[in-house]
């Protein structure tokens, strides 16, 4: 299996009127990853996207899909367009059918599926995007966020391997944007490679696995978020600005309030850097050496600062002659709060009530449209409806237990994000799916 699903080699394109849009690009899109193209308007992002699914033909250079060069005959074009779907920036450019159902059915119909298969695919996709109730509505009765979901559903119903989204969050309200990101993350989790373009540096920094900075039709920088966003020269050249979490981090770090050399991409990670070394005098056994790690046992009550119980280790920094030493204390919460994930596809009211009582849930978050609809239907009070993973993590760090209502691919995505955070920060956060056997 080739790792790069899409590749370009010295790609060039100029418009019929002579304007050069792409001047020699070499990119590699990794399978199953989230890639973001960042650059100001007119830097060639949209043109690049249309080249990647064969909508326009390059003047020079090559495009490889799964290691095979892209052809421009009917059959190859059909193949690439089935596998690389584009969601356009303006949903009205894409949704042309008079009803939601017919628009989502457009792609599968063009793939030559039988009527039954089309119906099955469309029903499944509409269900997945929480659009079933809107299926007979005409697009002009939908809100911006709903239109965006219809546009994405129209692409997903063709089951592409790669989905390209041109400015997916443009014109969406904050909660709508957050719901869309949940959907995208769930898609990515089930194996779809995602490519977006954006000029929202915070989104690019927090969301993408790999970034390309573009300016004037060229890639001027690429790499992981922590690499590209730590290069002020590159940021200036791309006509962008530094992400807000990094700005805050740099300021508090400069004042000696945070650990140095960190790279927080989200608020919980930022909070995690807020730990100046905690120094303490302790009595140590005589044979102790500087640099040793001592186990100071479990503290609780007023000695436990971050969670009800803490396992405390200490690294010896300096030995004193009278058997005492200066140590740096490292605390690990034993029962930091936890996060319970509830799969709404197996919702039953009694079981839910029981979980709420036995798990001592302090707050409930809903992730995804379906969860919110379920919560409304059963009058479940929702405290967190956007930025759900980050905010439940922050609550858990304060020793509270939170419940996340979600379903499908978003479950494994949330588990992954929380585990990653626990590993990086060293704080044990209890996470489990509470209603699976």
């Amino acid at each position: 299996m080739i790792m790069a699903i899409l590749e370009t080699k010295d790609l060039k394109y100029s418009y019929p009127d002579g304007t050069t849009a792409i001047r020699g690009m070499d990119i590699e899109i990794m399978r199953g990853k989230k890639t973001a193209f960042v650059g100001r308007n007119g830097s060639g992002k949209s043109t690049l996207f249309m080249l990647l699914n064969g909508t326009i033909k390059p003047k020079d250079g090559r495009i490889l899909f799964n290691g095979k060069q892209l052809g421009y005959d009917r059959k190859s074009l059909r193949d690439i367009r089935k596998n690389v779907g584009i969601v356009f920036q303006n949903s009205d450019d894409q949704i042309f059918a008079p009803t939601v159902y017919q628009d989502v059915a457009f792609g599968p119909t063009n793939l030559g599926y039988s009527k039954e298969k089309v119906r099955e695919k469309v029903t499944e996709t509409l269900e997945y995007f929480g659009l079933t109730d809107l299926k007979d509505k005409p697009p002009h009765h939908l809100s911006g966020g709903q239109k965006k979901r219809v546009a994405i559903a129209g692409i997903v119903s063709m089951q592409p391997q790669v989905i390209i989204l041109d400015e997916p969050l443009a014109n969406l309200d904050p909660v709508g944007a957050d719901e869309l990101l949940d959907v995208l993350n769930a898609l990515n989790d089930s194996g779809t490679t995602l490519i977006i373009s954006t000029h929202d540096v915070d989104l690019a920094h927090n969301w993408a696995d790999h970034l390309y900075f573009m300016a004037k039709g060229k890639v001027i920088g690429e790499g992981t978020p922590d690499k590209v966003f730590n290069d002020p020269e590159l940021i200036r050249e791309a006509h962008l600005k530094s992400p807000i979490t990094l700005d805050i981090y740099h300021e508090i770090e400069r004042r000696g309030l945070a650990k140095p050399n960190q790279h927080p991409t989200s608020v919980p990670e930022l909070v995690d850097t807020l730990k100046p070394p905690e120094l303490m005098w302790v009595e140590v056994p005589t044979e102790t050496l500087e640099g040793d790690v001592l186990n100071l046992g479990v503290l609780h009550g007023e000695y436990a600062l971050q969670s009800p119980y803490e396992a405390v280790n200490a690294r010896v920094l300096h030995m004193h002659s009278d058997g005492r030493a200066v140590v740096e204390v490292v605390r690990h919460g034993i029962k930091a709060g936890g996060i319970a994930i509830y799969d709404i596809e197996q919702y039953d009211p009694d079981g839910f009530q029981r979980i709420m009582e036995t798990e001592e849930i302090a707050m409930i978050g809903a992730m995804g449209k379906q969860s919110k609809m379920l919560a409304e239907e059963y009058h479940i009070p929702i405290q967190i409806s956007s930025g759900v993973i980050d905010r439940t993590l922050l609550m858990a760090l304060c020793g509270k237990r939170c419940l996340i209502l979600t379903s499908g691919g978003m479950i494994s995505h949330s588990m992954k994000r929380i585990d990653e955070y626990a590993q990086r920060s060293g704080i044990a956060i209890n996470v489990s799916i509470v209603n699976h056997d």
Partner: protein
Amino acid sequence: MDRQAICITNILDDYALLSPLRYRNNYLKIGIVTFGLLMGVSSTSPITPILIALSMFLATVLFGAIPVRFYLKLLSAPAVFVLLSVVVIAFFFGTGGELFGFDILGYRFSINTGGLNMALLVLARTLSGMTCLFFLALTTPMVELFSVLKTMKLPDSFIEISMMMYRYIFVFLEVAWSIRYAQNVRLGYRDWWTSLRSLAMLCTTLFLRSWEQGEKIFVSMSSRCYDGKLVFFEERRPIRINEMMLTCLYVAAITLVWYSTRDFVFV
């Protein structure tokens, strides 16, 4: 944006989209309406058309859940026109005994029995025709009619173009209203001449926009493997037994009234 104005322009379709009768069999609705139209027009007495008008009004308001106020408002525009025409007919047409009359400047204006009968018949027929068409328009949105057009064997390209036209009417309506608003706040409709100029600019821009939009749609459609063919999916909406029985009853009743009142004269 001028939301209110947009609502008024597409309100008929909006009500139809939300009407519970939307999900009933389209052919049944069209059949009932056609029957109503034919019976109303062919009736020689005003009784049948009035009965049809009443039943259509009740069906639209009760089964179709259309607000009465809105319905009457919709009806009022053509109704005023009809009433005026009917007065003219009553005075200037027909023969028979004079029922009512007066002199103006030595000229005799009078209504005779023939004129009154004709006026009443015209009024009743027009009302029944309008209520029949309102029933269809308020319970069957455009999106439902496309599949009917398809089964009527109209050319595919004709239906496809009308589908897209329907969709983009609303997109351009919104564009048109925002342009008009932008012109309005800069006094673009201050007097007759500036209004004319602004309107011309609006039309030009709209034309260019729709041209661009056409190209954009083509790009986005071909990126979803468009190969020149759209396929429709007609929702299966079988006619239920009780619907069928009610319709038969209605047809029978109207036909009976139509037949028994064929020689009826009002005065």
